[in-house]
């Protein structure tokens, strides 16, 4: 049997809350946590494979990601994949948590890293309170305890603006910076299929890459001065790269 046709065989995946999905074998195998069962042919049996630690809506979302990245990726420009990734993660912060946990438990490294980067970007430059608000984390400390903690933390927030720029941007691995910019023809989001209900796409105007970067930089992360400077530098960098190609 040819390798590719085996990969296209369908397998059945179920969730504990009654969801069931029929997907290609290669997509199922991309979830490393169940890949052994997939290889063993469990997915073709009557009951299919029970995917642990995930609910129906979350698995649906993950299978969509894997469908694009595993099955369709060879025929897509990198930039299209990037756009898809950005829009894919335009979800509520609670749902994002479930996606991350599922990617973690199902051992889907690429999705795990993608979400981690997004969360990192959402955290950068925020204060304790802002992070709690962003991630819906309740405040566990009494007013007294907070007073004690904040007494120590002022040292972090030195007042000079230089300090803000001193924040290390070495670890800044914004997705925007990667990928080539083959602008001629690329599959649009429409060609990729319909967008899920829980996505709220901010701005779908145009296919101009610079505009995309500008749009994406608005969500999540802080709008502090240095972030604007970083965005500007990224856009200029992207512009420079395009000119040099």
């Amino acid at each position, binding site marked *: 049997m040819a390798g590719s046709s085996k990969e296209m065989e369908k397998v059945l995946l179920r969730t504990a809350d009654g969801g069931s999905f029929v997907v290609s074998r290669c997509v199922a195998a991309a979830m490393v946590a169940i890949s052994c069962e997939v290889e063993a042919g469990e997915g073709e049996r009557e009951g299919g494979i029970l995917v642990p630690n995930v609910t129906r809506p979350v698995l649906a979302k993950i299978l969509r990601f894997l469908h694009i990245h595993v099955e369709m990726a060879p025929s897509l420009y990198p930039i299209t994949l990037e756009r898809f990734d950005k829009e894919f993660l335009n979800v509520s912060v609670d749902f994002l948590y479930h996606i991350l946990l599922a990617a973690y438990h199902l051992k889907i490294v690429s999705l795990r890293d993608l979400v981690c980067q997004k969360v990192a970007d959402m955290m950068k430059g925020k204060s304790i309170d802002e992070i709690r608000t962003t991630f819906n984390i309740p405040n*566990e400390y009494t007013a007294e305890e907070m007073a004690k903690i904040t007494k120590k933390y002022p040292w972090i927030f030195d007042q000079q603006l230089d300090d803000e720029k001193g924040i290390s941007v070495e670890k800044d691995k914004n997705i925007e910076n990667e990928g080539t910019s083959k602008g001629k023809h690329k599959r649009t989001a429409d060609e990729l299929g319909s967008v899920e209900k829980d996505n709220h796409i901010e701005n779908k105007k145009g296919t101009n890459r610079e505009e995309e970067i500008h749009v994406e930089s608005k969500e999540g992360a802080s709008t502090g001065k240095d972030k604007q400077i970083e965005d500007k530098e990224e856009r200029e960098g992207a512009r420079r790269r395009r000119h040099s190609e």
Partner: protein
Amino acid sequence: MVSGRPGSGGGLDVWFKNLMVAGEGGKMERAGPVMAGWKDLPMELLLRIVSLVDDKTVIVASGVCTGWRDALCLGLTSLSLSWCKNNMTSLVDSLAPKFTKLQVLTLRQNRPQLEDSAVEIVAKHCHDLRDLDLSGSLKLSDRSLYALSRGWPHLTRLNISGCSSFTDSGLAYLTSHCKNLNYLNLCGCVKAATDRALEAIACNCGQLQFLNLGWCEAVSDKGVTSLASGCPDLRALDLCGCVLITDESVIALANGCLHLRTLGLYYCQNITDRAMYSLAKNGRVRSKRGPQDQICGSATTRGGGFDEKEGLASLNIGQCTALTPPAVQAVCDSFPALHTCPERHSLIISGCLSLTSVHCACAVQAHRAGRSVLSNHAY
């Protein structure tokens, strides 16, 4: 949810007020116990996420909730506080007791802030430290070196460049306790890096591979020769500005440190051709025939054939005005990893106008081929 940080507008007071208001009516119990949320993020994921953010955000994250605090205190192994412009000592005082698993700590300063008490606190709490950067800590005294010695026998990397208040007694004491040092940066430590300290290093730190003695003007042949015999594993040695050293130092290094890849002799104006010939001789002694012979036919006649992965790859003889072209050419021939060609320039001869005639093998070949651009040269 995105709002200004303190430092804009009302400053710290406003920030405090907001924080206090949020904390008011704060309950002891955890809200939303049934639904797992971000506060329950597995430690491995949280650590992965914070590895992608700046150090200030990492510290802020440790105050968000008890789950994150515990995860970070247990798992954070690397931290930099170099972004702190003032009050680094206070910051270290409050953080060191929390992050006890730190292995890498960067306290580099542009403006000297750090005090001995901070180093002592770190030494008291962070027992796993392997890599410490204290560069620019002008305020630190030998007291810190003693604290380091007591706290971290397993220290492997130490950067105290610019700490001009340390003395050689403190440094010698440190090396007698931290025998696993692999990397030591003493650039500008004029009082600490003396021959006496080098002898202590040679005696104790046999595994040393990287040593920076830039601008340590007290260093002389005595210290370097003991270094050459005590630290045979040296890969990189920077003696820039060590104006007292003579050919004896280089000869000792050529004989004793056979793995040397980088050597800096900038401004060592006592260096003569004798030093160059000794380097070249020791390079040729270890040579073996390699694929180079096929690529650069001309190189074989010059007695090279050394593997690029061994021998000197970088040599700085800028301002060594006593050197002449034949001697330096001999060095260049002995070490194929040394280059004068623009793409891989690693033989630095700044200020030595007479040495511009020295060329590496690929530069010669390109010239012979009549090409002026070497960008496609496969070597």
